[in-house]
């Protein structure tokens, strides 16, 4: 009997790779995180009780939350908002707006007759406050794609992958033209169609490169604090949906988190993708994604090689295990009160070596 369900899923096939794995399409709990609205609702609910707990900008589902949205919109006149279709990906259908008249289609109007409503069913969108002061590198905007693996929701057990990347927009950031998709949207899919896109070049930096750049510019302490804030985003966003998701210990979910940094080096959660793209834009990217999938399967551990007490498997670090996970401390520093988290986003990923050590069979040990 296979302890995990495995089935090919077209949207998750990697570049040239044979891998495919099923995210359970059935079960409302799962779609709660995948479709943009689901997580939004849950997070917004939590934020109403605990403001500022997760760094995410005001988000509303339209047309269902139209009136709530308008209230917030009016509170900050002149601000820019971004509209994203709930069920589409890769940047399709996204646009920016500043005036309410741009989104009259999503206006929920009680006066419309039943027939009218059925005929002109608008697609569900999510409106989110646009971050107008993103952190720029050489005038360009970028966002971070980070991979988080959840093997159990109750109790919450989640792993953070060390590699990831920063996606750059190919043009310079400016709020003057919000119609220029190429400036504002950093999805690689959108950038690929930009006129000056050079497919050989790609516009991604590995997470290690970004981390080094930020460290060179701002110093180690600041950058460590930033990555700690990013860790909080992951954990808290998952905690907020813990009670809503259908928990099945035979399932796992690999999420692609999109994070944006603002000028003050504060991270903001943009969205969580339950089906992160596994197609590769370059050789480097392909290798990273292959390794990601390999390590995911190592953690899923169908052959039962792991003991269950590991804090690191390949490129994954155990981030939360029904409580915070700390790095191993040696006896000398035991006295110090400063325990650091077990996450290493953007750090050296010597996964091959680690896997060799980890999966080495110990003579005499019985495996199920």
């Amino acid at each position, binding site marked *: 009997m296979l302890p995990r369900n495995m089935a090919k899923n077209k949207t998750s096939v990697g570049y040239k790779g044979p891998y495919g794995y099923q995210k359970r399409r059935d079960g409302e709990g799962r779609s709660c995180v995948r479709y943009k609205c689901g997580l939004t609702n849950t997070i917004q609910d939590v934020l109403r009780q605990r403001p500022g707990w997760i760094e995410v900008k005001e988000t509303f589902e339209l047309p269902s939350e139209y009136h709530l949205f308008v209230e917030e919109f009016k509170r900050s006149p002149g601000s820019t908002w971004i509209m994203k279709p709930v069920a589409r990906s890769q940047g399709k259908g996204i646009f920016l707006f500043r005036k309410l008249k741009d989104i009259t289609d999503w206006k929920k109007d009680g006066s419309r007759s039943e027939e009218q409503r059925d005929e002109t069913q608008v697609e569900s969108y999510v409106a989110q406050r646009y971050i107008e002061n993103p952190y720029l590198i*050489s*005038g360009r905007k970028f966002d971070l794609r980070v991979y988080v693996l959840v093997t159990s929701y109750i109790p919450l057990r989640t792993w953070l992958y060390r590699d990831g990347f920063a996606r750059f927009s190919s043009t310079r950031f400016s709020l003057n033209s919000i119609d220029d998709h190429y400036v504002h949207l950093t999805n690689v899919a959108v950038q690929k169609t930009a006129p000056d896109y*050079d497919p050989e070049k790609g516009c991604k930096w590995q997470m290690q490169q970004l981390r080094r750049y930020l460290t060179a510019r701002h110093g180690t302490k600041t950058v460590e604090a930033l990555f700690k804030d990013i860790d909080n985003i992951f954990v808290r966003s998952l905690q907020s949906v813990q009670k809503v998701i259908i928990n099945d210990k035979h399932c796992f979910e690999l999420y692609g988190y999109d994070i944006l940094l603002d000028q003050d080096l504060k991270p903001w959660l943009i969205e969580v993708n339950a089906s992160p793209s596994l197609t590769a834009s370059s050789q480097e990217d392909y290798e990273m994604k292959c390794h990601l999938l390999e390590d995911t399967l190592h953690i899923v551990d169908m052959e039962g090689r792991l003991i269950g007490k590991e804090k690191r498997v390949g490129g994954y670090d155990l981030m939360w295990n029904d409580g915070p996970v700390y790095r191993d401390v040696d006896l000398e520093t035991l006295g110090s009160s400063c325990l650091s988290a077990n996450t290493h986003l953007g750090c050296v990923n010597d996964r091959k070596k680690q896997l060799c050590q980890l999966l080495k069979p110990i003579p005499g040990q019985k495996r199920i």
Partner: protein
Amino acid sequence: MMDEGTELSLTIAQIVQRLKGTNLHSQIERQAKECLHRPEIKLESLKDDVRHFLKASGWEKKLQNAVYRELHVQPPPCHPATPPEHTKEPLAYMRKAQASWEKRILKSLNSMCTELGVPLARKRPAIEQKELTNKWNEMGTDEPDLSRFRPVYAPKDFLEVLISLRNPNHDSSEEASSKSYWGLVQVPLQVRDIPQMREAYSELCLTSGQLGIDDLTHVPPDLFESEHIRIGKKVLSEQDSAAAQQYSRQGCPTGLRADLWSLILNSTNSPEDVLHYNQLKAGVIHHDLLVDKLIYKDVKLTASNDDYYFVFEDYLYQVLLCFSRDTAVLDHFSYNSATPPKSYIQGRVGEEEFAVVYPPNGVIPFHGFSMYVAPLCFLYNEPSKLYAVFREMYVRYFFRLHSISSSASGIVSLCLQFERLLQTHLPQLFYHLREIGAQPLRVAFKWMVRAFSGYLSTDQLLLLWDRVLGYDSLEIVAVLAAAVFAFRAENLMEVTSLASAEAVLADLSTLKVMPLIQIFLFATVI
């Protein structure tokens, strides 16, 4: 020959001359005047008290750093009757070769100019000036038609010139023997061998801690890294150039590197530096130079296509366009074997009064030039600061990589050293490559001309440049080139053509430079 005492006083006199009238001078004077109001300054011991005050307030240190900087860029001491061109380059045949190379480059530039009908320089009309001002921070978005422009020369053209260099006093007609040199460079310059380098680069030895080796994951930070970082912070707080340079020999921590390098180079980014940069920027706006197109083309061809440097495209224009117009760079020609190219006002060819240096900084960019700047964008993001650091690095080091001279850090010496190291320590490999028509220098030259920029991964490149700054010499670049060949020797022994040798050495992005250098220098059996 001058005796040491005379040499020293001459040096002091020269430095005083150079520092007189600089902003630092006036600032110290002002400080000295203002401190007279202070209670601790007594008339009886005026001189000592003022000196003491300047020391305590950090001004003496600033002066020390400025003097230290001048020592780096001073031409080597020589007899007062020496003509200036001998100071730049003592060997006549080198001077001649450099002069004829320059003639060739200038001819190429002029013919491109005539062919394309583009003037060497022109004033921009007002509309164009305004447009450029608005676009200053995003010049990379411009897509001018550069298809007609070609780089003036590429590194391989320069290599051919170096290969043909001969010392007329050296009899190279002897039969090829085991004592002869197998390499392409056939000039008898003195280069150091491994035993000499072991002494010179003692901080890189196997028993001494290094960043790039002892800061890797499996090494506990208490062993070296934490202490090294602590010392680095102390060096920065003391603001001592010489100490920073010494410190850099063992590598600079990522978080401290930007400040350490600007301390070593004494690049302070004072208000007058910012002013100077803005003046250069104004120069770019007012006039368009032909070399601007060459710079554009170079950036688009090299840095913009690099996986990591493409982000910094705009900064590269902002630095390089200003660099072309900076006449302060002309100072370095007093110790550079090259001479700035001259152009004549239209119709006045040959008349010295109508000669102008072109481009204003005397440096004609070649294919790959922008890669000297690209790695620095990782450290500095304020254009005036980035500019100041780049300019200093150019006038101390990079110029030597594309001019013909007998200097120990010059490209000729580096090529020769690379070949000699290979022949001495990897004779089988060298012989094999030579036999299949794959002379090692043909592959390694492009790495050395760029000081490995664009070939190594950025963090490794910065570790290499830490040592270039630390030892004030580019010699380590030649050592690394040899070490790379040593590392891939096994694969190289199997190749049968130059193309396959190039393929084996095409991707250096996974190399770790410090272990390679350390093993080559300290673990090679002599």
